[in-house]
Structure formats: structure tokens, C-alpha cells
């Protein structure tokens, strides 16, 4: 396929980018002892992007023959020409890139295809039963396994010719508990870029089941917090959510050009000097982060981008178009979900870099505050970095000790104000959101993580 794409790219009479993408996926979901879904899907085709008269055109086809792809190139060129007459700001150029070639990811250990459907089914059934049977107050239990196996070939008329294999398994658990007419929800998930054993060794499914049950049950008894602005310790999950949702989106160059709060702030201090925040196609610190990419969908090497270096905003996230506009190197953030999607600027693995403080020391230094863990049911952030997130697990900290468990906690504020208030960054590190997907018109698998951090944040209490 790559040879065909390269030949067609060379023959084309405009700049073209041809992306063959074969996605094979599987989903198994059990709930309350019943098989809700066991399915497999294949979505295969070629996405064609052209640049004609300073305007992009895009077409996609499931006909992956020479004739089919050629027709799509012509369709995309027609679409671009039609649009060219109406576009005000033409694309003058795309940032030049090295002509990357090669094959990536085909040396995967313990591939998902080596494991039978029965084995995957057994895992889901066993864990779902464990959740369901854990306590009479559990009224609904679910477990699911999903896998995405993506094979891509990308060729451009400026010499990119790469092949990729990406494998992303994930596993989820869920429990609903009920007592005295009240219902609470517990959930857990794990997701990796890697093989079957990479997923299982990251989290033990039995432990996930038990944690899910405990979370649902603990909330039944737990009080709600009072609203206040307080000192909090955010776990790596929430640090990652803050880094991705509330900061990361504001530095995506397309949103910057659309008026995001970071516009014109490169070189300015936007966070505490303790904070270094990155987005990377490499799985730094620990392996198997789900957003890991050797090259992006434009064929650009997806290396580490330091967005905030010791408190100072250093970079936005770019594709080739925005990099040319800003006169910088592309950062390898152009990603498309399926063959029929055009690449957009998307994050990969977004994290706060490790610091030096031990978690116990951080908690020990708080007289009155909260220890907050994982994103709950809700989360919203805007391009002005204002956010509101639900928190899945929360405890009071009183006189340097983790105390009472709380439920219904939300946090809100402006992410940059929160980062300015950081007075300790942990010496630990975890990738936390391998099972999630980021949405921006199309989904993208992106990981989030970091160490624990201590900062000031507004806690939402229940309205009485």
C-alpha cells in the first residue's frame, strides 16, 4: 500500500498527503450478568488532503485501488479549487519537514491478536461477576474490554513515506450502589499503547473491581463538602486533566489563532517556577502512555514539546500549517481519528514534569485542605482556561493527615491561576487516562499524567 501511495503522491500535480488507515476494533461489555455487546469492526480507507491555490481540499474513499485513490485526489483538488475563490487568507506555505521514512511499531510484544476472543471474554465476565457479587448494595455492575488496532501508511508529495502499527487495549469497571433511595457510582479504567500483558501489568483487573466497589459504597455514607477556596493536593490524574483540558487546549495553535487566552503570551510567566508542562509523542518517565506516536498523521516526528518551562510559556502545539504561520518547527500534533477525518492539532501525552517533594511531605504541610483524586462524572474547560471538574475521590486533610472521605466534590477556577499557586510538585509520576479519549470534533486517544502537586483551588460545595 505504501508503494502505491508514494507513487500516486509523486505523480500528483499539487501537494498531496495520502493516508491509508485500517482500523480493526473489538468491544466486549457485560452488565449485570448479561452480554450487552460483543462486536468487532473494521473501518478501512484512504484520506486524501491536497493544497491547491492556498486552500486545503479533503476527500476520503473506501476504494483503496489506484483508480479509487486517484479519483479521490481529483475530488479533493476540485473541492479546494471551488473553495479557493471564497477564501480570504490563503495558506502561503506548509512548514518544511524532513522526508521521514520507515516502519514503526511492528515489533510489538504480546500482540492482542495472539489472545483469543474467549480469553478476553473470560476476563470481562470474571471481573463483572466480581463487582456484582461484592456487596448486596451493588445494584448494577459492568465491565468492558475494548481494543483498537490501527495500521497506517502515509505518503506525501514532499517525500514522507511511513508505515505505523498502533495497538491500544483498555479495560473498564463500573458499579452502582444503592441504599435508602440514594444511588452512587464507582468506576475505574486502564488503557495503554501496547500489547495484552502491558495492559494487565499496568493495573490488576481484580484490584480495579474491588476499588470500583469500594468507591461506590464509600460514597453512600460520605458527606458533601462546604464550598471554599482551599489548599489541595491533586493526584496525577487530576494534574493530567488540568494540564490537558484547561491548559493544553489553550495552546493548540488553531485555538490560539481563534483567540485563546495564551495568544501573545510566549515568553511570559504563566505558572509557578516549579511547573514544567509538556506534551509528548514519547511515553516519558513510564512506558505505554496511550497517546504515544512515532510520527503524526502529517509524517512529522512526534517528539516532546515543552509548553511551560519552569513557569514560562515556551511553545504552542502545531501542525505544518500553523508552524509555518508562526515561523516555528511543527511539533508533530496533527492527528486524525479515522481515514475519513482530516488531521487536526491534537494533544498526545500531556503531563506536568516530576518535582522533588514526597507526597507525605506535601500532605504533612497542610493544616486544612483536601486530597483530590481522579476526574469524576463531569468536566468542562474553555479556551480562556476556566474549568470546572467533578472529582471522583476526595478526602479532607486536617493537621497534616488525610481524613474524612467526601463525595460530590467539584473544583473550578482558572487553570493558569491554579498553576501560579503551586507550591510543591511531587517526585512521583503516573500516566492516568489511557482509557479516555479527547473530543474536538473527532476523538483522539491521549494520555494525561504527572506527579502530585499542591496548589490553591475553589472547591464547590453542595447548594443547600
Amino acid at each position, binding site marked *: 500500500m505504501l508503494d502505491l501511495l508514494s507513487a500516486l503522491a509523486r505523480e500528483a500535480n499539487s501537494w498531496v498527503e495520502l493516508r491509508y488507515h485500517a482500523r480493526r476494533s473489538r468491544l466486549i461489555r457485560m452488565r449485570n450478568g448479561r452480554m450487552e455487546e460483543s462486536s*468487532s469492526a473494521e473501518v478501512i480507507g484512504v484520506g486524501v488532503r491536497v493544497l491547491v491555490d492556498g486552500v486545503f481540499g479533503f476527500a476520503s474513499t473506501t476504494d483503496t485501488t489506484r483508480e479509487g485513490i486517484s479519483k479521490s485526489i481529483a475530488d479533493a483538488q476540485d*473541492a479546494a479549487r471551488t473553495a479557493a475563490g471564497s477564501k480570504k487568507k490563503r495558506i502561503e506555505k506548509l512548514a518544511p519537514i524532513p522526508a521521514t521514512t520507515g516502519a514503526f511499531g511492528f515489533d510489538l510484544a504480546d500482540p492482542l491478536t495472539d489472545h483469543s476472543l474467549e480469553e478476553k471474554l473470560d476476563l470481562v465476565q470474571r471481573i463483572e461477576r466480581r463487582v456484582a457479587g461484592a456487596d448486596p448494595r451493588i445494584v448494577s455492575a459492568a465491565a468492558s474490554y475494548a481494543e483498537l488496532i490501527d495500521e497506517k501508511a502515509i505518503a506525501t508529495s514532499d517525500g514522507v513515506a511511513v508505515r505505523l502499527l498502533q495497538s491500544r487495549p483498555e479495560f473498564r469497571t463500573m458499579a452502582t450502589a444503592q441504599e435508602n433511595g440514594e444511588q452512587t457510582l464507582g468506576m475505574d479504567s486502564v488503557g495503554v499503547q501496547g500489547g495484552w500483558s502491558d495492559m494487565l501489568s499496568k493495573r490488576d483487573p481484580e484490584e480495579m473491581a474491588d476499588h470500583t466497589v469500594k468507591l461506590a459504597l464509600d460514597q453512600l455514607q460520605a458527606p458533601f463538602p462546604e464550598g471554599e477556596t482551599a489548599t489541595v493536593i491533586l493526584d496525577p490524574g487530576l494534574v493530567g486533566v488540568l494540564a490537558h483540558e484547561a491548559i493544553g487546549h489553550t495552546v493548540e495553535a488553531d485555538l490560539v489563532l481563534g483567540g485563546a487566552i495564551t495568544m501573545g503570551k510566549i515568553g511570559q510567566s504563566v505558572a509557578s517556577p516549579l511547573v514544567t508542562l509538556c506534551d509528548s509523542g514519547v511515553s516519558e518517565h513510564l512506558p505505554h502512555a496511550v497517546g504515544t506516536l512515532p510520527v503524526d498523521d502529517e509524517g512529522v516526528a512526534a517528539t516532546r514539546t515543552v509548553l511551560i518551562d519552569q513557569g514560562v510559556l515556551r511553545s504552542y502545539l502545531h501542525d505544518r500549517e500553523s508552524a509555518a504561520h508562526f515561523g516555528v518547527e511543527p511539533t508533530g500534533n496533527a492527528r486524525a481519528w479515522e481515514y475519513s477525518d482530516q488531521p487536526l492539532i491534537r494533544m498526545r501525552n500531556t503531563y506536568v514534569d516530576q518535582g522533588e517533594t514526597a507526597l507525605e511531605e506535601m500532605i504533612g504541610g497542610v493544616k486544612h485542605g483536601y486530597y483530590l483524586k481522579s476526574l469524576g462524572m463531569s468536566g468542562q474547560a474553555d479556551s480562556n482556561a476556566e474549568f470546572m471538574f467533578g472529582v471522583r475521590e476526595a478526602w479532607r486533610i486536617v493537621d497534616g493527615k488525610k481524613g474524612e472521605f467526601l463525595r460530590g466534590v467539584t473544583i473550578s477556577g482558572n487553570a493558569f491561576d491554579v498553576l501560579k499557586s503551586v507550591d510543591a510538585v511531587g517526585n512521583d509520576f503516573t500516566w492516568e487516562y489511557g482509557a479516555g479519549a479527547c473530543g474536538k470534533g473527532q476523538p483522539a486517544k491521549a494520555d494525561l499524567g504527572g506527579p502530585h502537586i499542591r496548589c490553591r483551588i475553589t472547591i464547590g460545595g453542595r447548594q443547600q
Partner: protein
Amino acid sequence: MSTPSLLDRCRQALDIARARGARQAEIAAESTRRVTATISKHDLQIAQTQRETTFGVRVFDEHRLGFACTNNPSNVDSIVGDALTIAAASPPDDHSVLPQPSDAPQLEGLYDEAAASFPTGDVVKQAIRMLEVATAVDPRVILGDADFVATVSERALVNTEGVEREEQSSVFTYFALATAREGELVSNFDFQFDASRSVAGIDVEPTTKRACENALGSLGAKPGETFKGPIILSPGATLFVLVSFLGFQADGMNVFRGMSRWGDQVGKRVASERLSLIDDGTAPGGVATSAFDREGVPHRRLTVIENGTLTNLFHNTYSAHALGATSTGHAGGSPRTIPSVGATNVEILPGGVPKDELIREISKGLLVTRFSGNTNPVTGDFSGVAKGAFLIRDGKIERPVAGTLIAGNAFEALMSISGLSEERERVFNFTLPYVRLEDVSVTAG
């Protein structure tokens, strides 16, 4: 030799499934041609074309479920095998059954011949028209994101029980998201949506104008006030605070899963007497209108809430079987997915009172035009930021307010509805009025 129709290809796949021993099987297919013109940052961004045909194969082997899909029509034989392999490994489930044949209505106005030949150039022209409308509203307005999409599609479905359906449709959709900017002041964004089934019905102007005017109106918003009192939700805010939640609670699958409280509430009051909500997959001109659902069961008009009383739940064949009911024709999803339960064209009946009258009766309250937050579908707790919000004082809109939090519980809010406007707007597949709620917690940001 003529190309076989989509229905013929489904019949062929069903024959293959039977030949391989499937006693119960369903083949669903959809073929789509779509042209999109996208606006970004007040300029034309890209024009794109897409064609795709997807087949979904669902089999039941002694009530054991297997499902597989492909977008490669030449690979349908192979996915029939995949579905059978999956079914053989699955545990049986008594509720895994296929629907029986029944008469589906013939619906007019779903397909406009002119849509099939609607040129890419005209799609681009409509997107440009949206830009022109926005510019004409006010130079301070920016159309941040917008698109015009022309879709022509064909669906077909067959099953071993004798159900055979096919349908052609066309739809033009237009979405506009606008902000306004004056010096350093930037408004919150507002978005609006509308659609037409025919070329003649396309009119992007009112939709675009409304998004722009709403964005402009919220320019210069300052912090609001903290109080507990009445709020008015715009049709868009009503969708996100109340109607999505209501759809979850009325979903037969969620009742069966033990995640809805409404399983034993049919025939009982769940909302204010002012509220009547219907779902009608046969509504002329509706975005979600089609003769049959994802399983081939005919669509129909279903009253879900009548004067505050829950009258019906949404069912597909599975949830109906599980709860001893009949499918209401609400199997949702595409051939890519196992049928879910999904609403079609939902409307809240108008309240007979002008929107301005709802405002006039309030001494102190909040008008919310966009809600950025969540309603927990299980507990009904909602909290979030009123992004487009206006303080109401002494029966008049006083000023735009920023960063105001609203919080409450959707079960209680449904009961506290104290007014519905006569005016309604279409938000995706929902047609909704302005809704006034009482006793909502409003916190200045």
C-alpha cells in the same frame, strides 16, 4: 449489468449467514455521500467530500449475540463469519431476539432529487452565505466555527424474521458558533443549528443571525449575584440541563439496567403539569425523521410525558422484551453499532406564553442561554457555568453576567417548571421552548 441495490446486497449477505447456519440474523447497511464546507475563524477553512457504505451483521445463535461490521462491501462474507464466531463464544441471553415484520409508514419529503446533484460549489456558497450574514449582523462578530453539510444517504435492512426495509434520504444541516469581540472584551460563544430536508428549504440566515446576536448580547458581561430563585433556560440550555437527562431516565435499557428511577413511574407524575414531551420519528421535516429504526421497526409518534405524567418509555426490541413491553421503534445507532435505545425528533409542546411574559413575571432571576456543565443522568444533580447569562430584575433583562454557577437537581427541576414559552427553537433533533424553573441555586463567579 446494473449494480445491485443496497437492499439486494443485504439479502445476499443474509443468504450467506443462513448458509453458514445462522438461524437469526440481521443485515443493516447505510450508504452515505457527504459534502462539507467548514468555516473557521471567520474564513472558509476547507471543503471535503466523503462516500462510505457500511454493513453491520448481527446474529443470534440460540440467543447468543454476535456483531461485526465493515465499511468494505467486498468483505461482508468475512464479517458474517466474524459475527458467528463471536456469537458462539457469547453467553445466551433470552432477551436477544429480532423484531417481527410489521407495516412501516411511507413517509413523504425524506428525499429531494435535487439533493443528489447538489454541487460542491453550492455547499461552499452556503457556507460563505453564513459568513456574509454574520458580517452583516455586526463587525464585532466572529464566526469562530461553522459548517454547512449536504448528506444523501440510503439505508437498507433485512432480517431472518422477514423484515425488509429500504429508504433514501437527504438532509442539509447548518451549524454556527459565534463570538463577539470589542477591544479587550470577548463574549462567550453561542451556537445554533438547523436543517432542511430539501434544497428549497435551505435558509442559513436565521440560524446564523441568532448565534451572532446572542454572542453580541453577552459582550461586556460582569459577575452576577448570588441568590436562590427563578431561572429561564433557553431551548439549548434546556436540552443540556433537562432533556438529555430525561432521555436517559425514559430509556428502557437504563430502566432494565437499574440506572433509571422511572421503571415504576409510568402513569405517575414526574414533572410539572405544564410539561408534555413527545417523540416523533415520522414528523415532517424532522432531522431524525425516517420510516423505521435501527432494527427495521416502524417509527411512530410517542407521547413520553403528558401534562407531567410519564406515559411511555423508549424501547428497542431488547429492552421491550426484557420489560414485557413492545418496541416503540426507538432502536438507535447506525449499522456500525449494535442497536441502542435512542430518541428521534423530540419536542416539548409550547406553553402558550410569550418568552417576554415569562421574564416579566420575575422580580429577580437569571436567563441562561448556554449551560457549560453536566447533569448526572443517574442522580439528576446538575451544576455548571451559565455561559450566556443575563440578570433579570423587575421583569426586565438588566445586563449580561459572567461566570455564574447554577446548580440543582433535575428530578426536582422537572417538578418545579413554572412556565414554558410559546416560542420554540430547533436544537439538533430537539424542538424546545424557553423553560422557567423555580428555586435554583445561582452563585456569582
